[in-house]
């Protein structure tokens, strides 16, 4: 659905926003474009949508070259720009009808399509309200309905939940999940939980380059790194310390006493998982076990490490 090869975008003044980016998105994929502000996400999306041209490289969307057949590409994709700009004087229904006409929806299907996307995005209640008087959440919904109105194969959503409150975020994410069954979706965001909630693949961008990509599960495996284990047992602090230090490959150990229980956090030298051995030792000592779990490396940890956020 999207094929990007060695994409480069240099703005006037020599600022390189995108540097040699290569990726592809298959039909039916829901891909998260993740990166800090200024990473080049919006620039890449603007190139994909045909709004700006690349300085170098090859970009194909739905099998068409965006520089050679920009109109053809635009017919096949639905695009929600960042901050969802709308005409404040227009009413919701009127706007969607206008956009459907502009996107070439046939006159006989116009009413049906507009009604369908309004239903999908839960906009019937505000059909006659001016766009300028809508809440941010409804504005985003109108933007998504606009992107969907001509039933495109591909949806490109640039920060669809930016500025929304937690309830509105959940609603939009649920909507995106619903859409995933029928559309290929590329979402850009710097909110990690959004990617975890909606996407099955991630492309991490930093300073215009792709620094990591893959399925979420693959990333978790790849970036698992050191194994961290938390354990809570009814035992004395010194006895527990001795027992844990006897485990092979413990790099660091922290213990804290909580009334009758002790909580320990172990950091192993590599990805070695000590839980089985530890459970046996606790059992052998006859201690009561309240908690034992391995802490995986979250997407956030990976993101911070790859984008240099932890350097401050």
């Amino acid at each position, binding site marked *: 659905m999207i094929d990007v090869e060695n994409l480069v975008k240099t703005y006037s003044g020599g600022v390189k926003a995108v540097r040699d980016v290569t990726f592809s998105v298959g039909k039916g994929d829901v891909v998260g474009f993740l990166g800090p502000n200024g990473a080049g996400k919006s620039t890449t999306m603007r190139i994909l949508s045909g709004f*700006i041209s690349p300085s170098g490289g090859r970009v194909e969307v739905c099998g068409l070259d965006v520089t050679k057949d920009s109109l053809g590409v635009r017919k096949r994709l639905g695009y929600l720009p960042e901050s969802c*700009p709308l005409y404040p*004087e227009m009413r919701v229904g009127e706007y969607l009808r206008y956009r459907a006409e502009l*996107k070439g929806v046939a006159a006989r299907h116009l009413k049906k399509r507009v009604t369908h996307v309004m239903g999908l995005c839960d906009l019937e209640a505000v059909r006659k309200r001016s766009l300028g008087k809508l809440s941010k959440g409804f504005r985003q919904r109108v933007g998504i309905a606009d992107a969907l109105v001509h039933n495109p194969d591909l949806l490109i959503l640039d920060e669809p939940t930016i500025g929304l409150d937690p309830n509105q975020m959940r609603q939009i994410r649920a909507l995106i999940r619903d859409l995933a069954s029928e559309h290929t979706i590329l979402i850009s965001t710097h909110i990690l939980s959004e990617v975890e909630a909606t996407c099955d693949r991630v492309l991490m961008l930093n300073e215009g380059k792709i620094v990591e990509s893959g399925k979420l599960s693959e990333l978790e495996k790849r970036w698992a790194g050191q194994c961290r284990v938390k354990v809570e047992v009814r035992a004395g602090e010194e006895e527990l310390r001795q027992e844990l230090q006897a485990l092979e490959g413990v790099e660091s150990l922290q213990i804290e006493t909580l009334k009758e229980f002790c909580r320990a956090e172990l950091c192993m030298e590599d990805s070695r998982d000590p839980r089985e051995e530890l459970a046996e030792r606790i059992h052998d000592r006859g201690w009561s076990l309240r908690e034992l779990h391995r802490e995986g490396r979250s997407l956030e940890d990976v993101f911070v490490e790859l984008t240099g956020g932890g350097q401050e």
Partner: protein
Amino acid sequence: MIRFLTLWRRELGAYFSSAVAYILASFFLAVMGLGFWYIASARLITGAAVYDLFRALYGGVAWVAVLMVVPVLTMRSFAEEKRSGTLETLLTAPVSDWQVVLAKFAGVFTLYMLFWLPTLLYFPMLNRLNGGELPFDRGALAATYLGLALIGAFFLSVGLFLSSLTRNLIVAAMATFAVLMLIFLAGFLPEISPVPFIQEASRPFSVVLHMLDFSRGILDSRPVILYLSSTVWMLSACTRSLESRRWRS
């Protein structure tokens, strides 16, 4: 064609859904109406011919209205879309840049001509009040409105182009006003320049003299071609300016 009509309808709708069209129409008709009343009452008393009245109204008062109204009409065309970000929404729909430019031009030109529409009644009304005895020249009236349309189209295309260069409405309006004022004032060069060469060289380009000719009923193909080609050229420049976002932004 459907896309063009859709864009054109939205453009017109946008003007009428805000106060801009109404305020501008009020200002425009007030200037033209007062001008007409003053000229008609002053000149008819002195027994001046109707064509003289035409000349004073369309070759004189009309400039005040046009020079004030055109910059305000065109300032928001692209500057507002750029400022609010709707240009990105618009240009990522399957419409070409020239379709957008042409539709915006058609929208603002339609509104401009709608402003002139009520003024068509001035002379038939005056004629009726005078018992139908005024030597009323329909040809001159048609030529006058053709001139207003041609010069208006050119001025509007200048305004659209300048609006495409900025995201600031005030800058767009001020720049348009300044450029149109220069074009207008340059129209006096054939009359006031002390240098004969400048007098002759500027004569074919004088909007002031062209409008006076139109209001006399003189229909010369040269100014018609000049304004049509200038309008097309300015609209092309506007399309290029819009396209420049692809490599410049």
